[in-house]
């Protein structure tokens, strides 16, 4: 394992300190417990948005704290959900009196820890609503399972719900917008290489020089299926199939197309993927009206990518276009 780290135990703390040093104009960082809030938190009268989860997915979530998006992000250890206490503390820190929305990726650990934090907040008289992001179509959904995972679609939920909160929507309305995005976004990913968790020091799976994993999550876990390496276009087709069938997306739809790098993929490859995905959507009569390409929800240094498609309407488009000022996503200000 070769990494730019000091003691693996300090990876998250040192990175958060670096993040604070780099983005002092946008965020403040609290330590003990560790969380990141926007510089002007709490914003009086505005619904606060809190997300969080294991570290190693950067820029998710800290990179999305700022005007027009999250009010706070709570980083856990690498690939491990944070405990309830920092989530609760972050919730208190961003409560401007209009309640707080928890945006949680659907993993048992994240769900349970946020649940406890919400209970603690409620006990303090803070109104909390929770939305669970579960956009990963690689996982078959069912009432009897943990359900689908939350992956790169989370970024779109955070941006759009953040814009709704910023324009003054109340807690129920912000939660409703978030649920709408969750209902309309689907994602699937592929890994070319595994990643190495710093304290583990070993990749959690190994792939031969001609193998790839289809339907991976974002924690270096194996995917649904291991196949032979294929040309980029064939891989894109393989991911887009289940995505488009799921809602389904149909001719006449307007969509946002997100091609998300897993951390170690060169940008030139992401654009090769984007080209094919846009081509396939166009052939199906689906219009790509908004786009996002880059590393947004990563798995450390993993090579690979995910494709997300979000069905847009006028409201979602307007909220997507609204100004945002975070370390990793910025426009309009």
């Amino acid at each position, binding site marked *: 394992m070769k990494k730019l780290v000091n003691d693996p135990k300090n990876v998250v703390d040192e990175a958060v300190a670096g993040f604070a040093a780099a983005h002092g104009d946008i965020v403040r960082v609290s330590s003990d417990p560790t969380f990141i809030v926007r510089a002007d938190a709490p914003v009086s009268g505005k619904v606060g948005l809190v997300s969080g989860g294991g570290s190693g997915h950067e820029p998710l979530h800290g990179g999305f704290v700022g005007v027009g998006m999250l009010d706070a992000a709570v980083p856990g250890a690498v690939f491990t959900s*944070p405990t309830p206490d920092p989530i609760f503390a972050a919730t208190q820190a961003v409560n401007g009196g209009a309640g707080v929305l928890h945006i949680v990726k659907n993993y048992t650990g994240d769900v349970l820890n946020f649940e406890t934090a919400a209970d603690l907040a409620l006990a303090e008289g803070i109104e909390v609503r929770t939305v669970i992001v579960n956009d990963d179509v690689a996982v078959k959904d069912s009432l009897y399972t943990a359900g689908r995972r939350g992956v790169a679609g989370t970024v779109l939920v955070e941006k759009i719900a953040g814009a709704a909160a910023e324009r003054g929507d109340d807690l129920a309305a912000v939660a409703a917008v978030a649920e709408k995005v969750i209902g309309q976004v689907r994602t699937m990913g592929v890994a070319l290489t595994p990643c190495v968790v710093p304290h583990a020091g070993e990749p959690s799976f190994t792939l031969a020089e001609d193998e790839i994993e289809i339907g991976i999550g974002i924690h270096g*876990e*194996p995917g649904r299926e291991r196949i032979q390496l294929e040309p980029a276009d064939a891989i894109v087709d393989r991911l887009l199939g289940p995505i488009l069938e799921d809602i389904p997306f149909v001719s006449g739809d307007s969509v946002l197309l997100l091609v998300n790098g897993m951390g170690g993929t060169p940008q030139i490859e992401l654009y090769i993927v984007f080209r094919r995905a846009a081509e396939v959507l166009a052939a199906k009569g689906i219009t790509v009206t908004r786009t996002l390409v880059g590393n947004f929800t990563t798995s450390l240094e993993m090579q690979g990518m995910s494709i997300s498609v979000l069905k847009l309407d006028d409201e979602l488009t307007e909220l997507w276009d609204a100004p945002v000022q975070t370390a990793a996503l910025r426009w309009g200000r």
Partner: protein
Amino acid sequence: MTNDTINLDQLTGWLTRFRDLVTEQVSYLTELDSAIGDADHGSNMTRGMGAVVEKIQASPAGTVDELFKGAGMTLVTSVGGASGPLYGTFFLRIGTTAGPVASLDAPGLAAALRAGLDGVVARGKAEAGDKTMYDVLAPALDAFDAALLASSDITSAAAAAYSAAQTGRDATEALLARKGRASYLGERSIGHIDPGAASTSLLFQALTEILGEE
């Protein structure tokens, strides 16, 4: 030796011994979690139980509820992930049910453990066969209760529970996961022992060992 009751020292010893076992087997637990999860169950449990024992040593509990509420709270605030809240709730409920006493008799321990299991189910919604810690905890407690019908000896009930725990742990290998991270693997989750089932089996190993001592 037989035990009609289990006292605060023994219960403290149980937690300490559990800490030792997860620490000894940290790589094993993490390897199990590599295969079907995210390779952190060993370090999660070691970190959490390490914190629990450290806290107990710094300020020993005066009653059973204090001991287990403290342990549960420490797990909740130091582990994260799925196992933190689940093990945390398990111990919190044990404490709440036990109350401010200095020791538990066999029915008292059985009730407390059962309340712990109910807490795990309330939080995690796991059912039999989902390939989780439930698949060790439930049969172990059933065996514990069944043994108590024959005798009020905690030692032999714990031994029965540990035996059922091992069987339950090994049986998770053949299961297709329906809860937790392993569920995302679908068919590929078959053929691996569930890491949480393995750590829960260590919990009963710790109990039998501590009752066998002295």
